[in-house]
């Protein structure tokens, strides 16, 4: 019987033997043995830390402190009573609400323009993809120069046409929108690549059929062919952009540090300040749980929509 025992990923599994009576009992173990390696990794890498964060959010743990005590929902209680939390949540939602539609439409527009072009396609693809490859922190420094109230490029151009530009990143009313613009600039290239891949997979003959069927304008062909056939890609792009803009941190940290007067405070940045500047790990963990809830929500929406994909004939 020894040849009916195997070791998979450190777990000993009995392989099924032909006799049906014995088989039933042993078969029930086999599937667990087979998923064990993946499950172990998932536990260590994903579920474990996640459970840790959730557990931490119910404690008063401070980074480096020798002890911690269970304080129940006190962190959440404090959080929901804190004005800064609501400001950062609102700012994050405004950021997502502007960057997602902005980056999706810009990405689609660039993809359509590149696709309809005849030459220099790969050059434009590279140019628009550059922001994705560049480190956002380094690029943020460049943006800081561009948006500088006195010698920045943006206000310089505005001055030429007779408009006195605001000090973008120092003004409460403009700082968040300036960050949104940078966010769109950064995400559009990534979305463009996804849309380009989607556009390439649309059969050319559909456009010809549309043209013959009377779709004379580019808009009519877009509505009839491009938009419906891009739907799976669009769903994916919207969700990915949503998740990525929920995670906005680097530009905020480098350019505004959440200021002026919390006008650009976003969830991850609050999490960072609470956890790593004030060392209130427990409170930071509670913020993380709120953040993860939103990400989970987006992921669920995506998996729902992905099931209704377009079937290609």
């Amino acid at each position, binding site marked *: 019987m020894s040849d009916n025992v195997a070791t998979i990923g450190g777990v000993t599994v009995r392989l099924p033997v032909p006799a049906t009576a014995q088989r039933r009992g042993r078969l029930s173990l086999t599937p667990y043995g087979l998923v064990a390696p993946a499950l172990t990794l998932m536990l260590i890498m994903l579920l474990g830390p996640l459970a840790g964060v959730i557990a931490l959010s119910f404690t008063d743990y401070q980074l480096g402190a020798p002890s911690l005590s269970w304080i129940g929902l006190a962190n959440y209680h404090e959080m929901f009573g804190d004005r800064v939390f609501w400001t950062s949540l609102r700012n994050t939602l405004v950021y997502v609400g502007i960057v997602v539609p902005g980056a999706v439409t810009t990405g689609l527009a660039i993809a359509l323009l590149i696709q309809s072009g005849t030459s220099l396609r790969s050059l434009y693809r590279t140019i628009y993809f550059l922001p994705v490859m560049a480190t956002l922190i380094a690029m943020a420094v460049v943006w800081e120069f561009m948006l500088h109230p006195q010698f920045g490029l943006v206000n310089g151009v505005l001055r030429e046409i007779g408009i006195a530009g605001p000090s973008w990143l120092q003004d409460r009313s403009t700082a968040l929108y300036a960050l949104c613009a940078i966010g769109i600039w950064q995400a559009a290239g990534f979305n463009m690549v996804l849309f380009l891949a989607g556009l390439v997979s649309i*059969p050319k*003959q*559909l456009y*010809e*059929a*549309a*043209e*013959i*069927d*009377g*779709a*004379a*304008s580019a*808009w*009519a062909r877009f*509505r*009839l*062919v491009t938009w*419906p*056939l891009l*739907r799976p890609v669009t769903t994916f792009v919207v969700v990915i952009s949503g998740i990525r803009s929920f995670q906005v941190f680097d530009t905020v940290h480098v350019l505004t540090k959440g200021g002026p007067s919390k006008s650009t405070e976003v969830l991850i940045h609050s999490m960072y300040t609470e956890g790593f500047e004030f060392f209130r790990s427990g409170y930071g963990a509670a913020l993380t749980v709120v953040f993860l809830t939103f990400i989970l929500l987006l992921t669920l929406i995506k998996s729902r929509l992905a099931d209704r994909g*377009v*079937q*290609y*004939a």
Partner: protein
Amino acid sequence: MARIELNGIRKSFDATEVLGGIDLTIENGDFLSLVGPSGCGKSTLLRIIAGLEPQSAGQVTIDGSIVDGIRPSARNLAMVFQSYALYPHLSAFDNMAVPLRMRRLSTVERLPLLGSLLPGRRREERIIRADIDKVAAQLEISHLLQRKPAQLSGGQRQRVAVGRAMVRQPEAFLFDEPLSNLDAKLRVHMRAELAELHRSLRSTFIYVTHDQAEAMTMSSRLAVMIGGELVQVGRPAEIYDNPRDVRVAEFVGSPKINMMPGRIRDDSRIEVFGHVLRLASSQPPGNCSIGVRSERIELGSGPFSGAVIHVENMGAEAFVHIGLNGTEARLVARVNDVRRLPDIGSHLSFNFAADAVRAFNSAGKRIDVTAEQPERIRERAVV
């Protein structure tokens, strides 16, 4: 219903010329097949007629008006594509409704939510539904209208594509190899259906195919294209029987016509495999080639002999492949009586009548031959 004229159509992609001056008139109600081997430019010509591809030179005229530079959507032609090109996200009904909605509804009326609130849209939709139901009944696809293309079989998609072309009653129908994605049996069936459809619609059909059998069986006229040139235009039977070019002779007809190397002798008679045919040519002496269709080869006796290499028995008829003695040449003969087939490897003699011979000069052009004393030749065939 349209008469389509092509004058000196040329097309080149960069330096390669794919169409070298095509002149062709397609009469109102004609079923014209553009047929030729792949890469001969027939699909390009069809796309030029449709307006999907601009020609480099020449003119396309539909019903007397020049349509060069006019968009495909404004030419009022319908096209059926090889891949059917059905919109995958729309049901069969909506696919067929697209050309009607595009023409009868304004951009505002076509808007998904707002449009359906407009009273004009409701009225139009009722008329569109009635039109589609009529065509669907004619094509026997009424029960499939709610299905998406992915839920339809190849033949059903084909019908929906034809239906989409039919609903708006276009000036002419263009078909771009519409049957080549179907299996052999369905293809034969659809062939008959399309021919019937043409008879009932009495519309102009232009049909592109590389399958000479499709072209022969369906069309009222055939235009054989080879290497970007229109080589011969005529009724199918006329082209089969009277090819003006060796390439036409070889392309049309299955199995392929038997070509044999021949020679025009100094006394202007034609000699093939050392045997002098009782045919005279007015052409100067030199090499020529002789073509004889498989059904005109008479097995049994005659001056030619060879060994049977292969026999293809199709049930109702059979093709006997013969390797000629002392040469590399192979001939195919059709035998109608499949109960009396020669054995493979056996030797047999054969002959062909003088009027079965089609002679071509070394450039591939047909040369006229005159039979000497036809009575004597008949006798030879019997001997």
